[in-house]
C-alpha cells in the first residue's frame, strides 16, 4: 500500500467517525426534544419523589451538561440506564442481546453471499437453465414476500402442521431453532446478490481478457475462479452495506416473531415503551455496525478491483 492509499483510508475513517458523531448528536437532541418525559405515566408521585427521580436520570441538569455527560459515559461504553427496565442498564441489555443478533446476522449474511454468488454464477453460465429460472423465481419471491409474512407462514407449515421444527425460541442457538429465522432473514439479500452476480458475470464473460483466458486453453473452473470472479463481484461488494442494513431491518421482525432475545426485539419493545435511552443506544449500535461495514467494503473494493485503489 502506498502513501496515497493509506491517506485515502485515513480520510474515509475520519469521515466515518464524523458521521457516527453526527448520528449520536442528532439522535440525542431529538430524544430530548420529545414531548413529555419518560416518567409521565408515574401516577400520584409526590413532587419531591419526582424531583429525585429526575435527578437520578440527570434531567435537572442543563441540556448541554446532559449531552456532555452522555458522551463521556458513551466513551466508556456506558449507554446509561434504561427508563423502563429500572434495574438494568442499556449496556447490559445490549450485552445480552448482541451475541444473539450477531450470530443470526452473521449466519444470514454468510449464507446469502455463498448461495447468492453460487446461484448467480450458475445462472450466468447456463442461461435459461433450471438454475437460471430458479434464481429468477427466488429473486422475485425475495422481493415480493415480506419477512413478516414468510416467517409466520413457514412456522405454520413446518412448526405447527408438520412438527418438524420449533416455532419460536433461542435455546442457546440450537440449529433447529435458528433454521427458519436465518432462512427468512437471508432470502431478500440472497435474491439481490444472485441477480447482481448473474449480471456481473454475464458482463465479465464477454470481456476480451476472459476470451483470452479461454483461448489459452484454461479450463472453465480456472477462468471463473481466477479471472472472472473478482471483477464480477464488484457490484456485489457495492450492495453489501444495503444487504447488512436489510438483514438488520429484517432482524427486527424476525426476532420479534421468533421470540429471539436479540437487540432487534429490544429496539422494537423500547420503541413501543418510549424507552428513549434504550432506543438511542440501539440506534448507535446499529449505526456503528453499518458504518464499520461501509469501511470494510471500501477495503474490499480495493482488493476486488485494483483500479479503485487510487480513487481520489
Amino acid at each position, binding site marked *: 500500500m502506498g502513501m496515497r492509499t493509506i491517506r485515502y483510508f485515513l480520510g474515509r475513517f475520519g469521515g466515518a467517525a464524523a*458521521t457516527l458523531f*453526527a*448520528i449520536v448528536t442528532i*439522535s440525542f437532541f*431529538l*430524544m430530548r*426534544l*420529545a*414531548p413529555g418525559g419518560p416518567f409521565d405515566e408515574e401516577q400520584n408521585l409526590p413532587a419531591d419523589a419526582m424531583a429525585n427521580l429526575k435527578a437520578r436520570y440527570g434531567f435537572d441538569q442543563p441540556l448541554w451538561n446532559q449531552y456532555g455527560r452522555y458522551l463521556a459515559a458513551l466513551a466508556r461504553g456506558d449507554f446509561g440506564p434504561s427508563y423502563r427496565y429500572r434495574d438494568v442498564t442499556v449496556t447490559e441489555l445490549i450485552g445480552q442481546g448482541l451475541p444473539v443478533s450477531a450470530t443470526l446476522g452473521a449466519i444470514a449474511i454468510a449464507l446469502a453471499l455463498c448461495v447468492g454468488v453460487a446461484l448467480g454464477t450458475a445462472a450466468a453460465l447456463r442461461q435459461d437453465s433450471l438454475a437460471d429460472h430458479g434464481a429468477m423465481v427466488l429473486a*422475485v419471491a425475495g*422481493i*415480493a*414476500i*415480506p419477512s*413478516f*409474512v414468510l416467517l*409466520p*407462514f413457514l*412456522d*405454520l407449515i413446518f412448526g*405447527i402442521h408438520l412438527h418438524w421444527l420449533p416455532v419460536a425460541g433461542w435455546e442457546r442457538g440450537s440449529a433447529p431453532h435458528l433454521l427458519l429465522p436465518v432462512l427468512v432473514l437471508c432470502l431478500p439479500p440472497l435474491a439481490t446478490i444472485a441477480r447482481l452476480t448473474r449480471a456481473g458475470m454475464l458482463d465479465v464473460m464477454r470481456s476480451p481478457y476472459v476470451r483470452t483466458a479461454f483461448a489459452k486453453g484454461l479450463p472453465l473452473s480456472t477462468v471463473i475462479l481466477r479471472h472472472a470472479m473478482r471483477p464480477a463481484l464488484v457490484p456485489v461488494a457495492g450492495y453489501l*452495506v444495503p444487504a447488512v*442494513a436489510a438483514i*438488520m*431491518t429484517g432482524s*427486527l*421482525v424476525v426476532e*420479534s*416473531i421468533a421470540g429471539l432475545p436479540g437487540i432487534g426485539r429490544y*429496539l*422494537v419493545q*423500547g*420503541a*413501543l415503551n*418510549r424507552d*428513549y435511552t434504550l*432506543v*438511542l443506544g*440501539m*440506534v448507535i449500535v*446499529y*449505526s456503528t455496525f*453499518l*458504518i464499520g461495514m*461501509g469501511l470494510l467494503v471500501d477495503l474490499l473494493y480495493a482488493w476486488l478491483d485494483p483500479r479503485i485503489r487510487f480513487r481520489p
Partner: protein
Amino acid sequence: MSGIWRDTARRLRSNRLALGAAGFILGIALLSIVGPLVDANRFDSLDWSNIAVAPGAQHGHWLGTDRLGRDMLVRTLDGTRISLLIGMIAASMSLVVGVAYGAIAGFAGGGIDRWMMRLVEIMSGLPLIFFVILLTVLFGRGLFLLLSSIGAIGWLTMARIVRGQTLSVRRREFIEAAVAGGAGPARIIFKHVVPNVIGPVIVYAMLTVPQMILFESFLSFLGLGIQEPHASLGTLIADGAGEMEAAPWILLVPGGLLALLLLSFNLFGDCLRDALGSDGS
C-alpha cells in the same frame, strides 16, 4: 415526446404480464374502495356470534372473522385501501422532493452539486429505518408522522437518478436555446430539464410504490404504524401471526394479498422499464 408515450403504451398493451399486473392492482384498488361500502359488515363492527370463524358463505363472512368477530374481507379491503393510499402518497412525496432536489443539484453543478450530493450520500449511509423508529417514539404514532418519515427516506435514490439524467441533458442545445431566450434557472429546470428526464423517473416512482407499501406494513406490523381499530395490511398480518395456530386464515388472507400486490407492482414496474426502453438507472 408524445410519440414515445404512444410507443410505450402500445408495448405495454401487448405485454400480457404487464396487463395482468396492472389489472390486478386496479381491480384490488377498486375493490378496496367499493367493497367496504357495499358489504353489510363494517371494518370495526363486532359479530359476537361468529368469533374467529373459518372462511365460508353460510355465516355471512366470506373470508371468515378475526378473534373479535370482525369480518376479514372488509377489514382486509379496508386495510388494503389504507396501505395503497399510504404507498401512493409516500411515493408522490419522494417523487416531488427527489425530482426537485436532483434537478437542482444536477443543473447547478459545481460546489452546490457536490455538497447536495454529499448530503444524499451521508443520508443513504445511515440506517434510516432506525431513525424512523426513533421519530415514531418521539412524536407519537400518527398517520402524518408515518407518511412524512416514510417520504423522508424515499427520495434519496430518486434524487440520484434525476441528477444523473439532468447532467446528461444539461449541455444539450435546447437548454442552451432556453438560456439564450432569457429563461431563468427555475423555468429552465422545471420546464425544460424535468420533462426530458421523466422516463426513468416514472419507472423508479412506479417501483417506489411497493417499497413504500412494504415499509408502511413493516412499521405497522411492529405496532409503530396504523393504530386500532383501523388496520393496514401490516397490522392485519401482525394480528394473524398471533392467531395462526387456531385460525390461519387471519394471517393468510392479508399476507397473501400483500405478497400479490407487491409482486404485481414490481412486475409492472419492470415491464414499464422495458417498454420505455430505458434501464431506469
